[in-house]
């Protein structure tokens, strides 16, 4: 499976990749994007099967990216990995088609539990 990790923080992209490995998903091919706008280019070029995106980013936020994908008819699986996990944000994410929202800080067990149903 090819996964696109979208976060404006290089450190957080490193942490997400490490956590994927620790959760048993080390065989995934991971590509990276720095924001929503960058992600749109990477999605076209790399055709990932799963997107793990931060919410709050410059240029284009994660929710704006998700809405853009929905408008284009994309069926790619999409989940948030973000610092906020409020009920209103979870509701907004679900309404826009996100499969899940993982709030930071997270660990490998969280990744394994939440991602497993979507990556079989």
């Amino acid at each position, binding site marked *: 499976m090819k996964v696109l990790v979208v976060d*404006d*923080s*290089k*450190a*957080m992209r*490193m*942490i997400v990749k*490490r956590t994927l490995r620790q959760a048993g998903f080390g065989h995934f091919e991971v590509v990276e994007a720095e924001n929503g706008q960058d992600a749109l280019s990477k999605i076209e070029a790399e055709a990932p099967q799963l997107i793990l995106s931060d*919410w*709050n*980013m*410059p240029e284009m*936020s994660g*929710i704006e990216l998700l809405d853009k994908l929905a408008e284009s008819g994309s069926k790619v699986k999409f989940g948030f990995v*973000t*610092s*906020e*996990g*409020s*009920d*209103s*944000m979870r509701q*907004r994410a679900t309404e826009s088609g996100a499969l899940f929202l993982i*709030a*930071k*800080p997270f*660990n490998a067990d969280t990744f394994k539990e939440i991602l497993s149903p979507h990556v079989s």
Partner: protein
Amino acid sequence: MLQGASSIGGRRLPTVIQEWLEVTTKAFTKLSEDFELPECTHIESVGDIPRNQPGAYISLTNEEHAGLVGVLTTDQGQKALTANMLGMELEEVAELDEGEIADCMREVANILAGMVKSLLTGGEDLKLGLPVYSLSPLQYGSSVRSEVAKVRAGEHTFAIVIILGPTKSGVGAAGRKESAA
């Protein structure tokens, strides 16, 4: 200390800022545990922001409050935090450039703000900005107040900073970006 004791939503600013400081310190202690830093102990609470320490700030705002949450520490403290956060050895962190260390500090502030939002009473209404890194303490006007909690984790001391004022004070305008729908 940046002085000021205006009222926000019927509550005195010193009361509100103390609440923010307690919650943020609690969140940092929890985050330190997650990063497997040595156990955090509270040293003291002061008003003055350390002048010789860099760090990262992020804005938290709602209709009444405009605030900044910050984490400051020494260069060595930043490297220790980065090493634990990224699961790297200190020798490996020494090879990172200043931009990469700053990136880690911004992310610490970002995660911390998310935790504060979830822990603070009424935090649901707070909107997070984008984190910024600063080599020097931020300065604001007379309607704004700052408080600092110093905590020690192992051999490193971290300053947990709250800068808070009424929304009209403009605190946190830099880097602000609405995050919640």
